[in-house]
């Protein structure tokens, strides 16, 4: 049974890691782009 759990966890870990990396990069890019333009971005 632990194989099944191992598969589930590993698959989950890979997907979560990648999504976190993408979100972090996206947020950092936004922060570097956003301030210069200030509020009118809304």
């Amino acid at each position, binding site marked *: 049974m632990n194989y099944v759990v191992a598969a589930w966890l590993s698959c989950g870990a890979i997907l979560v890691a990648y*999504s976190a990396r993408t979100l972090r990069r*996206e947020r950092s*890019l936004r922060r570097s782009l956003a301030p210069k333009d200030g509020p009118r971005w809304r």
Partner: protein
Amino acid sequence: MRYPQASGSSRLTRVLGWSALAALALNTWWGLWLSPPDVVQGQFVRMLYIHPAVATMCYAGFGVCALGSVAWLWPRLRSPRWDRLAVAGAEVGAVFCFATLVTGSIWGRASWGVWWTWDARLTLTAILFALSLGYLALRRSIDNPHSRALASSMVAVLMALTVVVDHYATVWFVTLHQNETLFQPDPTIHGWQLATMLVSFLAFGLVFAWMMVHRYRLEVLEERYEREGFTSALEARRSEALPERRVEVPAR
């Protein structure tokens, strides 16, 4: 295209994100607890609720990449959108491909007792993964946006064709892998197992879509970041001109 908010999650991604999580939860609940163990495989049948879905998303990713590249190469259709789609597809595809290999080898270890078997589908996925690493490495090594799009879309199309050749090569080479349990004329699974498997496809499909949207948006931001940098680089370059012979460049 309106400016995305600074917070980074628009209505679309929020809906997609939450529904994906819900479907994953359902899939986990059904897959691990509710559905009965298989009479033959025992508990290992539960792999059925991850591996095929993840593998399908892997091929979907590379399919999107190939289509995006072909669209970008088509003179009339050419637009940065296709290139962004291609890179999103390739990267998300590569992640799912890696997940497929991991879960596949775990399943192999469980049912055949060995981490890696020379089986047609597993080998093809491994080749696909190596190709995608090459593609992504190529994209990182060219900085001119136009030539990067040009070189990578050509390489993507050539790779897609190579995958077709690989398919025949590996299938002839060894035919060990059990064929698709789901798409058989009379599916050998039914009841709970079938239902859970469908849920798994839905769940990972949503995760795939959510990732694609975010990755696509990331590409848009990177382009804007470069354009931002470009205007300041242009001014810096112009300021190098001999100070006393400064010429007002006629604004076109």
